[in-house]
């Protein structure tokens, strides 16, 4: 008997991936050349799976601000804000985030995962009720587990199911807190937020929206789905991350609710961890500035997302329900997803594999995400490789010629 026996099923899955010669869960990017290219296993690869939505990781101003902060404030904060003090950058970033959202309060966390873990576990007390969308991210479920509230899961994107579950709780004491996401990371679909907001309002519940994948992607000014759906007033807390559109690491929560700041001395994943380092904070601040000042990035991003989605749909791939910067091909089984991933990488295209139980409805996914930094030609090149490999594997009938014809039609 070994301490690791309980991971037997997981180990078998890893062994399966290893047999495919390349394990998608331990790939190394030897050198990153730009937001869209890297050297992987000695070869140049087009990156189509980075969540680098606005492509800001190599922006000269973001790099300059980050490097300047490292020189002036050092590489790390070496402690938590509660025990070892806040830096000016932490407070500036919180002020800027609050101003961006037009809300009174903002709180910054060291990772997006910790923002979800901290806010959800702290807000929902022992007698409260959390209602989570079935497809919410693992960090939301982990936050719910860390807290002491009763947790109810409702059907993905179903305001009717949420409403029914709220009715079952109608006479049970305690606050009700609903959590949905702006864009779901596995299939790239959005929540019907207007309808969720109405259900929440009617039940007198609190509504939290995790905009991790929708910040800088959706909404007139890039604030996310709550802005796009016109229901910001109904959303009590917005959670998000710096690690996608803003090209850094960290998470945040913004809110208008009075008394919010008490969380700083009650929220353990905020209190008992090192605060975000100065270079990361300064880079994130500049990236936020760019997100606000350059709406063209959002347009490019969404254009590329639609281009990839339409191209893959035309080839005959089974996709998620709507175009977004996350575009996932649904495959019949995990082995097919791993094989597809490997063949694409061999051909110079880097994507992601997502397998159950991390995926909804036990789907096996080859997941791509586009960036504003991708050129239309790069997306066409990716589509040609999808067509080639898809045809080789017998997944689709249309070949690379169809892609070339579609690309020619677009530029004509």
């Amino acid at each position, binding site marked *: 008997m070994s301490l690791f026996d309980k991971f037997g099923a997981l180990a078998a899955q890893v062994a399966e991936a290893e047999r495919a010669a390349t394990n998608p869960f331990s790939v190394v990017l030897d050198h990153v050349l730009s937001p869209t290219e890297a050297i992987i296993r000695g070869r140049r690869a087009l990156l189509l799976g980075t969540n680098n939505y606005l492509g800001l990781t190599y922006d000269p101003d973001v790099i300059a601000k980050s490097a300047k902060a490292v020189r002036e404030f050092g590489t790390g904060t070496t402690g938590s804000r509660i025990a070892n003090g806040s830096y000016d950058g932490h407070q500036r970033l919180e002020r800027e985030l609050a101003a961006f959202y037009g809300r009174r309060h903002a709180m910054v966390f060291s990772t997006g995962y910790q923002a979800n873990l901290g806010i959800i576990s702290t807000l929902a007390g022992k007698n409260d009720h959390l209602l989570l969308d*079935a497809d919410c991210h693992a960090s939301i*479920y982990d936050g*719910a*587990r860390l807290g002491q509230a*009763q*947790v*109810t*899961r409702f*059907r993905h994107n179903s305001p009717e199911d949420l409403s029914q*579950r709220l009715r*079952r*709780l109608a006479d049970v004491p305690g606050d009700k807190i609903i959590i949905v996401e702006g864009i779901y990371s596995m299939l790239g679909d959005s929540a019907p937020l207007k309808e969720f907001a109405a259900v929440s309002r009617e039940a007198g519940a609190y509504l939290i929206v995790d905009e991790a994948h929708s910040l800088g992607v959706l909404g007139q000014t890039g604030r996310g789905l709550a802005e796009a759906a016109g229901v910001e007033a109904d959303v009590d807390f917005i959670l998000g991350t710096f690690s996608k559109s803003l090209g850094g690491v960290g998470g945040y929560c913004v809110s208008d609710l009075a008394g919010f700041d008490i969380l700083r001395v009650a929220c353990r994943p905020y209190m008992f961890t090192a605060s975000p380092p100065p270079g990361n904070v300064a880079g994130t601040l500049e990236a936020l500035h760019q997100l606000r000042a350059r709406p063209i990035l959002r347009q490019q991003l969404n254009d590329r997302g639609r281009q990839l989605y339409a191209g893959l749909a035309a080839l005959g791939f089974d996709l998620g329900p709507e175009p977004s910067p996350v575009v996932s091909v649904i495959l019949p089984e995990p082995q097919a997803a791993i094989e597809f991933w490997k063949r694409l990488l061999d051909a110079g295209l880097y994507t992601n594999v997502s397998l*159950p*139980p991390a995926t*909804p*409805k*036990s789907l096996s996914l080859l997941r791509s995400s586009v960036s504003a930094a991708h050129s239309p030609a790069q997306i066409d090149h990716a589509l040609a490789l999808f067509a080639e490999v898809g045809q080789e594997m017998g997944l689709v009938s249309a070949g690379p010629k169809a892609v070339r014809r579609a690309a020619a039609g677009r530029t004509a």
Partner: protein
Amino acid sequence: MDNSVSEIREVIFGTLRATLRNPVELTDQTNIANDLGLDSVAVMDFVMEIEDQLNVSVPLDRIAEVQTLGDLVETLHNVLSNA
């Protein structure tokens, strides 16, 4: 429905028989992960089907404790009795 233990068991077994691709003999001792091959998310999805039929919500921490079909019958019976 008065939700007796046997009725709850019939709803669970009936739903499983309709959804499982490979026929498996179902008893109270059937282990949901090992015998039915359902992962953590698939178990939660399956419980949702049962919840709809019995008009009840089972808190996730209670589902996490369930290992066998007998456990699930008992959990649902307890939740329904206290509703």
